[in-house]
Each structure stands twice: as C-alpha cells, then as structure tokens.
C-alpha cells in the first residue's frame, strides 16, 4: 500500500505552506521520497491499480469465467464471415485466407487491449465529468491523465489475447513457415505504436466530453467502428480506405502489424506509420491538457 502522506499541506505546493520548492521534492510534494525516481513511483502505482482491478474482478468468479467465455464466443463467431468469404474465393484483393487470419488475430489482440485496459478507465472519466467527481481525482498527487487511464482494468479480456495467439499459430501453420525474428520485432514496434494511437483516439474522445458532456454512448460507436479492423485494409477503396488509414487509423492498428509479420510491409510505410502514430499520441496529450485546463479554469 502507498504510504500515507506525511502532511496534507504538501498537496498544495503553490500555497507555500510546506517546506519550500527548493528542497527537491519528487514532484509529488513529499519531501521524504526525494531519493526515489518518479518513474518507479508511477510503476508501483500502476501495479497497485492493476491489482485492485484484478481483485475486484475475481470477487465474482462465475461472472469472470462467463465473461471470458463470451470473449471466446465472439472470436469464433467473428471468424464465420471470414470463413464464408474465403469459402467462395481463395484470395481477396491479394490476401489469402491464412494471411487474413493474421489480421483477425491482430484485431482480437487490439480489441482485448482496448476493452480490457483502455475503455473501462476512460468511460469512467466521462461519468466523473458528468457527476463532477473528477475534482477528487485531480486533487491526488499524481498526473491526472495517468490516474484516469489506469483506474479500471478488465482482466478477463486476456482471453482475447490468448485467442489471438491461437489464431496466429493456426495461420502460420497454414502458411507453412514461421515469421522471421526481424518481422516479429517490427510487428511489436507497430503494436506499441498501435496501442499509443488507440489510446490517443480515446483520450481525444474523452477530452471532448469536457466540452460536450453527453458522449458516453460514443464508446459503442468507437467499438463498432473498430470492428471494421478485422478485415485487411486493401479490401476498402476510396473514401473508406482514406478514412480507415488516416482519420480512424485501423490500418495502423491491425493491417500494418499483420503485414509486418507477413513481410508485406514496405519500409517507407512502416516508418511513416511509426512517425505518424507518435505524432498522433503527442497531439492527444496536448488536447487533454487543454481540456483539463478548460475544466479546472472557470466555475467548475
């Protein structure tokens, strides 16, 4: 457990009532932990948040298992359209069945991360804004965006990740060869960027809720748009292709990592994707800070 604050006054450094700014506090306003680096503080906080979510999820064990089972049902059901399509044709826009399976695997992986780690916390922010209880969160001596993003996890979504790995194993067995190490490395790099982009998209949606309060059902819209990510991006043409590559970058989240694993990703696209993803994430941080400033400024 976190040690209790040595002094309530240390939460408000600007008030000048604690032992001064020049004493090298670690950014939390607590003089005692000056030796501990900030990142290890946050790492411990993250582990604590995750443990709390896991404990409260495990309290309802039957519920936990049921939700895990439902994840698997959704995955198998989602494969049926894919199987139906490839039952009729052996390739679609240059993608064969095992290759399309790799895209589905990435989709399942990203969906597990989205609904397990990102959505639950960020939907609770919208609730907080609506009820006005976000202020309690903002008072805490840690970065608001971090606290808000790690508030809640859904551990049974790990089933989606396991399902994704099973799909990968099957797909590469069908292809007859395993992905080479450098491809896996590139795919993992794209995975990190994909998570950043997904998270950034969500932060943008949640920041919107500071201005337009009623956005809670946007999480359903988000999820349903994300569903289109189970198909390789080359299937879409024209306006849809543009939208899913640059506006709601599904291509980056599911197709590009799959293409990296399959050695189909040109180097220029990979570099552009990495750079674009990181730029997007910094934009989101900027918008969040502005939104928070707006929220805390006037008479809220």
């Amino acid at each position: 457990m976190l040690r209790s604050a040595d002094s309530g006054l240390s939460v408000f450094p600007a008030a000048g009532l604690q032992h001064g700014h020049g004493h090298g506090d670690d950014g939390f306003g607590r003089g005692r932990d000056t030796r501990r680096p900030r990142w290890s503080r946050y790492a411990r906080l993250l582990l604590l948040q995750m443990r709390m979510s896991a404990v409260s999820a495990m309290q309802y064990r039957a519920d936990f298992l049921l939700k895990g089972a439902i994840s698997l049902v959704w995955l198998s059901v989602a494969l049926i359209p894919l199987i139906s399509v490839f039952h009729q044709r052996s390739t679609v826009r240059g993608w064969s069945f095992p290759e399309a399976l790799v895209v589905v695997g990435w989709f399942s992986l990203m969906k597990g991360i989205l609904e397990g780690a990102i959505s639950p916390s960020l939907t609770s922010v919208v609730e907080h804004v609506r009820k006005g209880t976000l202020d309690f969160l903002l008072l805490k001596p840690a970065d608001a965006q971090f606290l808000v993003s790690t508030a809640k996890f859904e551990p049974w979504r790990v089933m989606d990740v396991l399902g994704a790995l099973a799909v990968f194993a099957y797909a590469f067995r069908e292809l007859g060869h395993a992905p080479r190490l450098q491809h896996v490395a590139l795919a993992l790099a794209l995975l990190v960027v994909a998570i950043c982009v997904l998270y950034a998209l969500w932060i943008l949606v949640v920041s919107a809720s500071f201005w337009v309060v009623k956005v809670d059902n946007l999480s359903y819209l988000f999820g349903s748009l994300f569903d289109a990510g189970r198909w390789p991006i080359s299937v879409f043409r024209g306006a849809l292709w543009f939208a899913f590559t640059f506006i709601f970058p599904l291509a980056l989240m599911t197709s590009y990592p799959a293409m990296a694993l399959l050695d189909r990703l040109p180097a220029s696209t990979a570099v552009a994707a990495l750079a674009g993803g990181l730029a997007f994430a910094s934009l989101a941080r900027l918008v969040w800070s502005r939104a928070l400033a707006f929220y805390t400024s006037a008479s809220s």
Partner: protein
Amino acid sequence: MTTGTTVTSIASHLRRAASAYPTLLRVGLSEVVAYRAEFIVWILTTNMPFVMLAIWHAVASEGPIGRFGQKDFIAYYLAGWAIRLLTSTWLVWELSMEIRAGTLSARLLRPLHPLFAFSAQHLAALPMRIVVVTPVAVALVWLAGDRLAIGDPRVLAIWLASMAGAWLLIFFTMVFLGSLSFFLESAIGVFEVWLALFAVLSGYLVPSELLPPWVGRVARLSPFDSMLSFPLETLIGLRDLPTATRDLGTQWLYIAIMASLGLSVWRRGVKRYVAFGG
C-alpha cells in the same frame, strides 16, 4: 399492481392500454426527438452491414457468388440495414437497468402493464427511424431497384406482415432475455451471446445461403431466420411466393412460442421481484 391472468383482467388490460397508447406514443416520440443526438449515434453504431457490403463488393468484382452479383449485395445489405433498424428494440438494456436499480417498482404500481408501456416507447421511436432509413431506402431503389420484388401486391402483403412479425418476435425475445435479469446477475452476458448468434444466423453479417453449409442449415431452421432473413429475402425477391407464405406461418408460430415463454418468465420474475420487497 395487477398480475392476474383471468379473461376479464386481460380485457381490462387491453382496454386501458388502448386508451393510454396514443399518449404514450406521443411522449415516446418527444423523448426521441429530445435525445436526437444520442439517437443518431446509436444509429451509427449499426454500421456492420456497410462494412460487409464493402467486402462482398470487392469479392464479387470478378464474378457473382452463388446468386449474388455486386448489385444483389448492395440490395441485400442496404435493405438488411434498414430492416434491422426498423425491427430492433433495446428492451433488454432498459429492463436490466430498471430491475437492478429497483425503478421497475414504480412501473409496476401503475395501472398499465409495464410491457405495454415499453412497447409504446419502442414503437414511438419508429417514426424517427423511418426518417433516418429513408435516404438509404432511396439509395436502394436508385441503385438496385430492379431487384425489389414488392411490385407484386401479394409479395407486398406478405412482406408487410413479415415486418410486423419480425418486430413482435424480436420484442418478445427481448422480454424473455430481459426477464432473465430477475434471476441472473449477468443477463447482459446472455444477451451478448444472443447478439453474436443473431449477427451470424439471421443473415445480418452474411447472407444465409453463403454461410458454411452446416451453419446455414442451423440458421434456416432457427427463429433468427424469421427475424431478419425472411423479411429481407422476401423484399429482394430471393424467396418465391410459396416459400414466403410457408415461412410466414413459421414466423408467427415462433412469435407464439416466444410470447408465451417471455411472458411466463416475466410473470415468474415479477413475483420473485415483488417478494423481495422490490
């Protein structure tokens, strides 16, 4: 609070409902208009048919798949989206929330049976939905109008009956699933499994004749066929008149089954709910 099942009480239910319905419809309509932004967002979440259309359109670019060419896919998915929108209800979410929050008690105290009130609320959303569906319907007629089979008045009559039937079947299925909230902690989980099955077996994601053979067979025999495939394929002429007439009988048989099942679970659930001081 009335839970009686005698003939006189059913008749009085219906009489009260008949007098209350117009007002309930008006209230429901103004609710929908007031929350139109949310309504539009909910409409936008049902975008799977358009994604599937893009995919099948790509697949069919080299040649038709079974009975489906590119134009047939356009007709199928645009009409499928419209029919889905016009026949779906959100009763399970509402019931689940009201049961867990306990606000169902307020509804049970009213002289009008809660299910009548719910159905009025859902029917009241239809005008707004028709407004939203109209542009897509116009696009459907413009792009694939020659595929529509409702020029024949007999087919039109069967289609209209099938649309009403689909709405009722889905409504009573929702009553059944929603009433499970009286007994189960995670009735929403059961509903999500049902949604997954609906998406696959009712022809929402993939036309049932293009499904893998054994899945297609299960789909044809299941009530899901009556919920979407039947009205849809009748509309775009994939079911001939004798088959459609027979399927109409099947649909109303399923409605009778789901209605009695749903209502009996509802009644048992209400008894349990009230017994616990709800």
